[in-house]
């Protein structure tokens, strides 16, 4: 025999799954939301999203090449996701230079300072968003009215959540779910985000545990308050349909690297994200609390992983 046979331990076949497959799967799931943001916010949405992707990829490339001196991994799609999610978390009129700073914080501090994909503790896009929110509070909380709105509308319009907190009049529920409301790029349409969720569940990119536990916790927590005091501030339907809750629950909290490994852990993580989100929304200084809640629980993820185990075979005695 001319050729030497290869000898290696089993298994000898692979599923064909890969990191890029999962990352691009998430990007496909983000398409409905992206299309809707184009429809609602127009050209600005396109420019911001593309710029954000570009910044994230460039920063990752330069940091890996010249600072860490490792092979850049920008082709795996994870930097693109960070870019898209960062853009989806900012108002559509955010100046590009501020966005660039956000991308640097996301990729530089959030991801590469820990060693790159797989090693970061906090969701990079959220690190970027929170960095911007604290550094540029005015720009980050001034939302332009959707381009769809009639010209007589005010130039800047408040989001549903800030109106809730200040007791102003609320938009209709249907416009909140469809997403023709004011807000950050990717958080206005709950329906588009849910389509993304269904796609990711179908493709087995994520499991239901994190998003559903967050949404149910928020719904139940606010529903209890609503029963005692039925005012819009506590209305669970409004809470589910507003702000970054869906975007956070579906696309940010489910980030592989920064979320727990076991099903039990995912449920604990989702539960606390839900609780913290509602607490910040109702009683905190900010009208919106999803990003803080997720980043807080990102920090608890190693601890949750330490204390939870998968459901073992043969653990429970049989009936």
């Amino acid at each position, binding site marked *: 025999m001319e050729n030497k046979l*290869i*000898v290696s*331990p*089993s*298994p000898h076949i692979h599923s064909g799954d890969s990191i890029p497959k999962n990352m691009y799967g998430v990007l496909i799931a983000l398409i409905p939301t992206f299309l809707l943001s184009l429809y609602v916010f127009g050209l600005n949405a396109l420019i911001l999203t593309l710029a954000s992707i570009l910044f994230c990829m460039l920063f990752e490339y330069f940091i890996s090449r010249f600072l860490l001196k490792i092979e850049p991994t920008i082709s795996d799609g994870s930097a693109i996701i960070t870019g898209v999610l960062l853009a989806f978390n900012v108002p559509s009129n955010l100046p590009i230079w501020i966005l660039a700073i956000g991308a640097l914080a996301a990729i530089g501090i959030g991801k590469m300072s820990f060693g790159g994909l797989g090693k970061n503790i906090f969701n990079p896009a959220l690190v970027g968003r929170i960095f911007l929110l604290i550094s540029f509070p005015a720009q980050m909380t001034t939302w332009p009215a959707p381009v769809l709105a009639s010209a007589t509308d005010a130039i800047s319009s408040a989001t549903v959540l800030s109106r809730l907190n200040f007791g102003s009049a609320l938009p209709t529920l249907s416009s909140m779910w469809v997403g023709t409301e004011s807000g950050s790029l990717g958080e206005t349409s709950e329906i588009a985000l849910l389509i993304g969720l269904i796609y990711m569940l179908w493709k087995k990119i994520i499991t239901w545990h994190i998003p559903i536990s967050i949404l149910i916790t928020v719904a139940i927590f606010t529903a209890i308050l609503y029963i005692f005091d039925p005012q819009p501030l506590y209305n669970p339907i409004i809470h589910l349909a507003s702000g970054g809750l869906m975007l956070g629950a579906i696309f940010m909290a489910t980030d592989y690297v920064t979320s727990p490994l076991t099903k039990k852990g995912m449920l604990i993580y989702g539960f606390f994200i839900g609780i913290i989100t509602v607490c910040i929304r109702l009683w905190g200084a900010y009208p919106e609390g999803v990003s803080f809640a997720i980043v807080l629980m990102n920090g608890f993820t190693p601890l949750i992983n330490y204390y939870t185990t*998968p459901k073992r075979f*043969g653990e429970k005695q*049989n009936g």
Partner: protein
Amino acid sequence: MLKTFRIGGIHPAENKLSAGKKIVNAALPAQVMIPLAQHIGAPCQPIVKKGDKVKVGTLIGKSVGFVSANIHSSVSGTVNKIDKVMDASGYKRDAVIIDVDGDEWEPTIDKSDTLKRECNLSSKEIIEKIAGAGIVGMGGATFPTHVKLTPPPGLKADTLIINGVECEPYLTSDHELMLEKAEEIFVGTEILMKAVDVKKAVIGIENNKKDAIARFTEISKSYPGIEVQPLKVKYPQGGEKQLIEAITGRQVPSGALPISVGAIVQNVGTTFAVYEAVQKNKPLFERIVTVTGKEVKNPCNVRARIGTPIKNLIEIAGGLPDDTGKVISGGPMMGKALPNIEIPVAKGSSGILIIPYSEAKRKAMKDCIRCAKCINVCPMGLNPTLLMDLTEFQIWDRAEKQKITDCIECGSCSYTCPAYRPLLDYIRLGKGKVTGIVRARKN
């Protein structure tokens, strides 16, 4: 809803290329090399020497120790020598090398093909016959069958499970055997039921073998106590613990034997061998081997004598393709890659799988992205990525607490990992280490 096991599992491409191919007999080789260690446990003591004449079915290796199984000659001829020969494990171990001359069988063996249904032997006599015939688990585990049929005192089975799952991709030897020797397998099942004194037997068959399910369901009508259970196609359903759960709903506790939940599992190949041993006095000296692979010209199911070099079988399938990267003994998930094709067929050789070069090499490993897919597919409910880390950093006490010794080495984790991490390689290493530590502590 078809029955299956609850935790984890995967569904790799089935690639049953040799399905429906009738079993062909391999020509007798000029020489056989019969390894003296073809089972889990102590190797046999050779009882022949150079120059001895043997017939087909002559005892040539006697089992020593409790967990061991006799070895018989698979050919007639003259013992050439007893020498070290490389087997599927990759190690060189003692084997009896016999020059073949004719095909003369021991006169006690009934060579006829007629079905013999009646069996009036007692449980003890059946188990003795099985031990004498050197039968081992033919699904690949090669655990001596008579030992499995002799449960520890105080434990009794209520269900016999016959494993016709064949969940490994590519392999079809059990499938074809079920189609061609269906009645014999039922008689074998009845004999095993008698041996372990149970009233109920269930034959589990995955739903990708609908012809076998139909045929078995039909036959089962005339065999009271034997049920056929179609199962959802999911790997590793042929794993003993997974199959017991799929069929009875009971989970064997960590570290315990199947008998602790009242089940005994036997493979269909083993069951057929039991039939032949008990009813036809035929020791285990041949088996069905699937020879297959994407580039293989004629994927087939071959009946081969133990000790036949696998290259002879590959010839039957059309020869070794030019593009061969890997030759595997067994299936793609749990089989062993062979260093050469001179290695002889053994009792546990369920298949020979030839993998083209393009699919034979692993991809470079990436950092873990903590997607938890390995955890989701692990049929034992383990955390493979954690176990890999614990092994890498040699944290054995935590590895033990994380049940590393429960791993059944099915390979679902490595198969699934999108970062191509060699999870099972590490876990195997850690499992061996922890098993050693636990054993040392007991002594």
